[in-house]
């Protein structure tokens, strides 16, 4: 690693009553890089990304985000806004596509005109301009996922975590997603999980998960 780490895991342990346990020794992801996490179903990709994404705390250990130790203890608002996590099964709020995309900006206190400008620009970038006023309940699974990714990207976080972002996406959107992630190299640290090892061709680093253990594969 040449740059400063944007995100680092420090001895993470997470156990579940049904027997699965995640065991992650130290690893770090340098700022501005693209990291892929691969592994079969049940390997622990989502559990790991939820911990790295500050959604769930680990039983033991912690993470470092932009040099600050997080967990145990509450996550501050500043730390929370430095990172955006897009879930494997994203949830869209009742309302329009534009309202959803602007949600995080509103939460950051961005005023009306500036928020609208950024939302409009994001919708255009994602090819969602025609769906701006559409009710999210009318979207297909792929469209909903695309909107969720746009909602995360518009925030321009220091760290963006995408849990299986290519699920339900058709080939053109998968290509567009690759282009989008590549375009963030150097400015945003991107972590994403995938079943398909071929999808990690755009990654600077690849981590393989198997039965809760993580190994750096590249």
């Amino acid at each position, binding site marked *: 690693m040449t740059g400063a780490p944007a995100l680092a895991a420090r001895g993470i342990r997470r156990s579940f009553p049904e027997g699965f346990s995640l065991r992650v020794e130290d690893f770090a992801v340098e700022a501005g890089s693209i990291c892929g996490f691969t592994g079969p179903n049940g390997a622990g990709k989502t559990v790991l990304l939820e911990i790295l994404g500050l959604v769930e705390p680990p039983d033991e250990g912690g993470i470092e985000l932009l040099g600050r130790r997080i967990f145990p203890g509450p996550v501050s608002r500043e730390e929370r806004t430095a990172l955006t996590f897009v879930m494997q099964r994203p949830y869209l709020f009742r309302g329009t596509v534009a309202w959803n995309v602007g*949600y995080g900006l509103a939460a950051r206190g961005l005023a009306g005109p500036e928020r609208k400008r950024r939302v409009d620009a994001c919708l255009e970038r994602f090819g969602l301009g025609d769906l701006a006023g559409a009710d999210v309940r009318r979207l297909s699974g792929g469209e909903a996922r695309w909107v969720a990714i746009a909602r995360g990207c518009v925030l321009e976080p220091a760290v963006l975590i995408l849990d299986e972002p290519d699920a339900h996406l058709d080939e053109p959107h998968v290509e567009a997603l690759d282009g989008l992630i590549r375009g963030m190299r150097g400015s945003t640290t991107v972590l994403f999980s995938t079943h398909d090892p071929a999808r990690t061709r755009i990654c600077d680093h690849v981590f393989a998960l198997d039965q809760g253990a993580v190994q750096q594969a590249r």
Partner: protein
Amino acid sequence: MDFLAEGAAQALRLLAGGNREVWAAVWISVWVAFASTCVAAVVGLPVGYAVSVGRFRGRRAALVALNALLGVPSVGIGLLVYSFLSRRGPFGSWGMLFTPAAMVIGQAVLAAPVVAALTRAAFAGLDPRARQTAVSLGAGPVRVALTAARELGPALTAAVMAAFGRVFGEVGISLMLGGNILFYTRNITTSIALETAKGEFALGLALGGILLVISFAVSLAVHVMRGPEESR
């Protein structure tokens, strides 16, 4: 049967003729129930949310208390509030007993657990990803709560309307705290009780008809608010 038919016909004449006593009781019922429901919503919605999503000591006890309060009869609440507002009670000097304000307080105490319990149930059924998503997009606690409430808009509106239905039809609190004073605290239910006891069956029947229509309208609104999925 003649007795019933005659009473019904007289009731219709009273309603159509704009009988002042009837419509004053209707107006008092509506505005007192509306005011008490508003107070109950202000208290019950946050309490229901806190009990549903909060992780604090005593949460289980709060849940039990909330469910127990649902079963308290209106006359019991009337008695409790009466003891506070009567001349010898701690707030006796405020002179609120036998006023519409006293009725509002009593009915709000009756309605708040209804709002809180239904709100708690609604939030318990909310997809946990809704709050997780709001948090991960940088929302603070208040915005997270408001976002979750927005997601449950129809269910929470139904909770408030159910509370309105509960207080609109109660009689114990109105009688004990309002005193059944004509054109001041006499509402539909206390009028029915009084007029029927006096043998004025037609007036009781007219008011009972209005009570039924409004109660049915509220139930229908609750049903529609919950939507086809939740009403099934």
